[in-house]
Every structure is written in C-alpha cells, then in structure tokens.
C-alpha cells in the first residue's frame, strides 16, 4: 500500500469515527429534547396528581376526627346536645363531600370484601359466618380511591 493509500484509509477511519460521534450526539440531543417535551406535557398532570395527593393526605388526617364524632354520637348525650353534635358532624362531612370524599356503604350481613373492608376481629352473630357482622369504623373513598377501608368485625357461628 502506498503512503497515500494509508493516509486515505486513516482519513476514512477518522471520518467514520466522526460520523458515529455525530450520530450519538444527535441521538442524545433528540432524546433529551423529547424527554423535555414529554416532561412538560406531563407536568400538568403531575401537578394535578400532586394537588390530589396533598388533599388526600389532609383528608386522611381528618378522618379520625369524623370517627370521634361518630363515637361521641354513640354515647348518651342530651337530646339537644346530640342534635348539635350531629349538625356539626354533617357540616363537617359536607365540606369533605364537596372535595370528593364519599362514605363506603357497608351493612351487617354484607359479604366481606377486602377491597373496601378491613377485618379487625370476629363476633358471634346471627349473620352467615364470614360476612360483616358489625361496622366499627366507617370507610371512605376519595375520588374513587379507597383511602380507608371500613373496619368490620366478621360473623362467627354461635356456639
């Protein structure tokens, strides 16, 4: 091979290397730009999710207060006091409902469904064994999602 041919071959090598680098850089650039555009598109949704998440955290913290109202109403109160507490509770629930909170409807005798129920014990009952015997704490959905299952005791046969 003459010197010229060797030189030519070297040049081809350099050119190939450049071509490859060019491709890599363009790939990287395009990918970065695409990622960025997608990120921008997703950002709206992300913010929405975030807002939802923040509210649902707040609501989760508030649920024990709703429970306390329920517990208070389960005790002997004077008629007017009971009505008062009931009103405060519904005032409170209205606010949360407007934000998307929904009580999970559960009654004694319902089939146990772990998607909306959590069992915390068993109790002797008239109902079929394994079904919900009593609801001890209400469950809630927030915008379709179960944020707290209803806490229930399951029926077991009387011995």
């Amino acid at each position, binding site marked *: 091979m003459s010197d010229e041919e060797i030189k030519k071959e070297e040049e081809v090598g350099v050119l190939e290397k450049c071509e490859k680098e060019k491709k890599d850089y363009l790939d990287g650039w395009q990918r970065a730009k695409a990622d960025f555009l997608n990120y921008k598109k997703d950002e709206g949704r992300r913010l929405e999710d975030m807002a939802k998440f923040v509210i649902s955290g707040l609501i989760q913290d508030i649920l024990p207060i709703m429970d306390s109202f329920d517990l208070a109403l*389960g*005790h002997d109160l004077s008629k007017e006091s009971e009505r008062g507490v009931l009103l405060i509770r519904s005032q409170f629930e209205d606010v949360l409902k407007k934000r998307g909170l929904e009580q999970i409807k559960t009654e004694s005798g319902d089939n*146990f469904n*772990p998607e909306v*129920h959590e069992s*915390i014990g068993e109790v002797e009952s008239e109902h079929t064994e394994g079904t919900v015997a009593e609801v001890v704490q209400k469950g809630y959905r927030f915008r379709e*999602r179960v944020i707290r299952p209803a806490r229930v005791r399951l029926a077991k046969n009387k011995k």
Partner: protein
Amino acid sequence: MSKILGIDLGTTNSAVAVIEAGEPKIIENKEGNRTTPSIVAISKSGDRLVGLLAKRQSVTNPKNTLFSIKRLIGRKFNDSEIKKDREWLPYELKESANGGVEIKMQDKFYRPEEVSAMILQKLKTDAGEKIGEAVNEVVITVPAYFDDAQRKATQAAGEIAGFKVRRILNEPTAAALAYGFNKKKDEQIVVYDFGGGTFDLSVLEVTADTIEVKAVGGDTHLGGDDFDQKIIKWIADEFKKQEGIDLSKDTLALQRLKEAAEKAKHELSTTNETELNLPFITSGDSGPKHLVMRFSRTQLEKLVGDMIDKSIAITKQVVVDSGFKLSDIDEIVLVGGQTRMPAIIEAVRKLFGKEPNRTINPDEVVAIGAAVQAGILQGEVKDILLLDVTPLNLGIETLGSVMTKIIEKNTTVPTAKSQVFSTAADSQTSVEIHVLQGEREMAQDNKTLARFILDGIPPSPRGLPQIEVTFDIDANGVLSVKAKDKATGKEQSVRIEASSSLSKEEIERMKKDAQLHADEDRQKRELVDLRNQADSIIYTSEKSLRDAGEKVDPAMKKDIEEKVEILKKTKDGQNGNEIKSALSNLSSSLQKIGEVLYKQASPEKPEDNNTSSENVKEAEFEEKKDDK
C-alpha cells in the same frame, strides 16, 4: 427495547422502580401506593389476595395469610432460624421431600418461592399496567447475607412469576448504586438498613468496576415495628395508670392506638412533642373515657434507646469484622423507614463523625438502586448524556463584603443565570465584579475566581443604574461572567476555565467549613444586612430632609437628625438588636415626615428614590474608592 424492572422484594414491604428518561422512578401499584405489603392470602371465599388486600383480612384469617416469606425462602426445614420462626408464625410449615420448607395455605402446601412468585406476579402486572407495556425482565434484590440456595430460590420465584431474572443484586449494593457510589473508586461504604422487621449492616468496598461486600451483620428480629410496639405498650400502660382500664383487650381501641402510635412516631421525627388525642377510646363505669396525653421525643428515645444502642454495637462489630477502621469509612447510606428518626441519624453521625447519606427516600432507595442496575443492563444510562452539576455556589461580592449567589450549588450544567444590580453611592461610575465560589456567607471566606471592573457608568443617584450580571457555565464547566450597564450597553466579561477544577478534597473542605461556620456566618450576614439597611435609611433620611427643606417642622427635623446620628453610631457596632431598634426608631419618625409631605404634596416633588430603586436592586455593589 422493553424495560427492565428493579424490584426490592422485602420481608414486610416490596417496591418497584424503573428507569424513565434516564432517571430511576418508583412505580405505584394498582391501589396507588409506592410500596406493596409482601403478604399473600387465600380468603375464606377462596380468592387469592396479594398485598394490601391480603393484609386487610389477616386478622381474621391468620392461618391462610402468609407474610415474612423472605425469612423462609431457600432455607432448610432444620435450620435453627426456621425452628425459631416456627414458634411465632401463625401459619403451618412442614418439611418438604428434599428437606426444604413448605407452607400451608388453605388445603395446599406451597414452596416459599411459589409464594414469593405470587407477590412478584402482582408487582409485574401492576407495573405493566402503569408503564403501558408488558415488562418481562427484572433485577431483584436480596440481603447481602443470603447464601447460594436463598439466591437461587429468589431467582426461581422470579422465573415462576414469568420474569427473565437478569440479576440478583445485593440490597446494600443497590442502595450504594442509587447514590451513584459505583463511581467512587477505592472507597468504603457502610449501609445501615433499619427496616420494619430486620436490621442489616453491610460494609462495601468499591473497586475498579465492582462493589464488593466486605462484611455483613445484623439482627433479623429488630426493626421499626418493635418501636411501634414499645410506644403502644407505653400509651396503654399510661392509660391504665390514669384510668385503671386495660385497652389491650379491645381490638378497636388497639387499632386506634396503633395508628396514633405510628403517627406520633412519624411526627416526632420533625417536632419535639406531640399530643395523643383519642376521644371516646373506651367506656368505664362512669361513662366514656378519653385518651389525651403528651408524648415527647425524649420519652420516645428513652423507650427505644436500647434498640438503637444495639444497632450501633452491631455496626461497630461489623466494621471491625470487615478489617477496616471506623475512620476508613468514606460514605454511610441510610436505608429503611426507621432511619428517619433523628436519634438514629445522630447515633450514626456520632459513630462515624460523618454526615450519613439520606437524600433518597429510605423506603425506596433499594428499589431505586435495582432500577439503576436495570438501566445499566439495558444500556439506557449512557455516559455521553451524563450531565455534571456545579459543586459549589457561584456568585459575586456585594455591599458589605457579602457573597450574593447567582448560580446555586447542585445546579445541572450547562446553565446561565443573570441578576440586575445597582450602585451603592451617588455618582458612582464604576463597579468591581468580584467573582466568588464557595459556601460561606462572607466574600473573604470564599475562593476568588476573578475580578474585573466595569466603568463608564453615567453619574447618577445610587440605586438607579441597572447593571446586569450574567453567569454562564457551559457543558465543560467553563464559566463566563459578563457585566453590562443597561443604560449605555457597555459591557465587560471574563472567562474562567478552572471553575470546576477544584479537587474533590477541596470541595469537601469548603463544604465542611461552611457547615462549621454556618451560625457565625449567618450572624455576620445579618449584621451586614442590617448595616446596609441602616445606610440606605440614613441616605433616604438625609435626602428627604434636604428635599423637604423648610416644609418640615424644625422639631421634627431635629428629631430625625438625632436619630440618624444614633443610627450612625450604632450601625458599626456588633450589637444587632441595638441597630434594629435604632433602625425602627428612625423609620417610624421618617414615616411621620412622609405623611406631612404627602399632605402638602405638590406634583413636582415625587418620592422617586424609593420606588424606582425597589424594582431594580436586589443587592448593591460596594462603592469603589478609586472611582472617578
């Protein structure tokens, strides 16, 4: 190419992550949670349940709810660990034909890998739905102490779930990968993993291209759940002392206690005291009873102190076993939710004399690291796309010798930022741009990168000229600083090649210095800010008095002049409070003058000085002595 999942298959909880746009990201499950309980059950109605749903029925179905399967996988029935675990696990175990373990659920016996496969299967399905494409390859993490049989069994679990298992990765290695420590050659790393049910300590060594586990240790029955139990017991005992009623028999009360205890534990990571408030917790002879008590961080630390001490003792021992000294350890990584507890962070910091790494969510760091490994395998993390960050703050010196940051540390480069400054004195015609790098508040404590002068600014009152300073760092770390007078368009600039050439040690030293002097620096900075405020208000007062001339009542004028004198005297002292009170005295008197002037206001006397300067100056340049 399809994605590879990274899965942290934990004893109590599991997590899944994947590389998206070059960054690892946790994938939520179908229920919308970032972690999934590692629990499998067959319900009384015969359905197979995995994760949260299985957990929700575990109380009433203990014999058919399988948890802590990771404690059994790959073990022999006759292992001493299994013998111990059999005593407390509520489900039935038996020896399999080959000496392994089988677990009974409903009427059938399963091998642990089959049960783990059910968990993996759920994670796989949920992840596929979330990503929008089926994922068939996976990196699964296991504890560093897992032997060959346990690793093989975990791999088998993955295969039963329909995965191609690309790698079985050590959990501590994953945690180190999540922090990018695979690039730290010849460093020793300690991974302190305080999970819900287990405590693991690992010492790693990073060599040329591998992360090697040098020593492991731990306690398989020490975890955050033990902390919860201690808190619950404490509350129940206190309540018994107060009211004489035992809550431990009442399932609903206990449930509420458990939630309150967890909440209190979390809160005490950020506050010093919390209130436990559970109205109508139970009923006594005299009617309803309420639980109200205060619970402090000190009390919590007293309750669990011995468990933290135990983990620290194990840590010391394992480091000794690894053949290193405590001082040889370069990085400490915290894993597991319990490591959010300040007392744990402090204990670790004290032991090593170093700040542990905890910027990544400790519940997710192992899954994140598994995803990083998956990313390396699928070739997504390409070197040419890796972007650097500036290790230290970059800024300029402004009035009172403080450093004003322009580009904050940890900003990804290339980047450019600009800020508009103004002059500090009337008729100032030049400004000096003193380019600084560092973490400290005062200019002289930072490193000087360059100095240059922009002159030719038309003489005007202080605060009026607009000088735009732009910092631009290119992808190679070359910093260009430009100063431009917006009125004349005149500009001056400098290029600094060496802005990122600080050695690692130098950067570390500067960061440490900043931490060490943080309080003192802040005080100095506050003093300078007060002095600057003082200067500015003195200037305004004198100018107002001059401008107002005869319109101001002589008594009022005298009052202001006196207060200006007082402020002038105090402002160079070291007592911030004195300056503050002198400042507020003067400014209230000044307001009175303002009111008077407004009342007699004529249109040719606008109070232009304050309004115009407020929009422009974020800081002012120091007056140059030699300006002309």
